[in-house]
């Protein structure tokens, strides 16, 4: 598992590469949380397109970050969901809880829309 993190304005963009399970969940959680603190980002865009496997431990990481971002009145958007991940995301209810986009471009457009609405 590895992570690519970068920030732009008040948004942190995270791409997870590899398996998101019990063993990688803690590391991913810690790295995202540290990065959110360092960059003081309010919003989080999470790219799931390079995830090779995910179970409920991985969903816990997504859900935990969502709660945190919402507490800070920010927006969290997930994108790039492969067919193999769709079922567990649907069963978990995450897809009805937070916005889901196909690409990063769409996620930025949605984020801009939401910022305008809330301004």
């Amino acid at each position, binding site marked *: 598992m590895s992570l690519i993190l970068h920030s732009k304005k008040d948004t942190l963009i995270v791409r997870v590469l590899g398996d998101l399970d019990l063993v990688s969940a803690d590391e991913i959680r810690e790295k995202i949380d540290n990065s959110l603190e360092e960059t003081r980002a309010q919003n989080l865009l999470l790219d799931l397109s390079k995830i090779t496997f995910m179970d409920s431990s991985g969903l816990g990481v997504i859900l935990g970050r969502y709660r945190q971002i919402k507490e800070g009145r920010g927006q969290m958007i997930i994108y790039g969901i492969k067919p193999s991940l769709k079922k567990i995301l649907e*069963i978990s209810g995450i897809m009805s809880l937070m916005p889901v986009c196909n690409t990063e471009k769409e996620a930025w457009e949605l984020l801009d829309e939401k910022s305008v609405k809330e301004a």
Partner: protein
Amino acid sequence: MDKIVNNKIKLEFLSKGENVALARITVAAFVSQLEITLSELEEIKVAVSEAVSNAILHGYQNKPDEIVTIKGILKGYTLVLEIIDQGVGILDIEKAMEPAYSTDPERTGLGFVFMQSFMDEVKVESQVNHGTKVVLVKKISTDLKNTAVS
């Protein structure tokens, strides 16, 4: 001609998080002797991951030097898996299987929900202070085989 598969495996490993991937990949390789769809394979991998994660996290409460055992049987198009730990056991199995039972905000409590959604049968036998056995049964669809014939 249909290939009749009858096979068995037994896998024992330490209760370390690193072995969760080993467990699901081994079971995936075992069941791949059948003509199985990628979607079914993914579902089995998630169910195994959940059962083994539960054994490590809850059964052995993260103690890394205990033994988790997986027994697998393939009989025709049916896969039967037993995931066994000798950990603390479950006091109330029904409650443990409820969605979102977990009190940790970082955990979804969906482990058993996924096992039940992705497998045809899920049975849990547990005795407090003696351990837990989770039995997962999956009937592999013969769609691929039928497609090949037609």
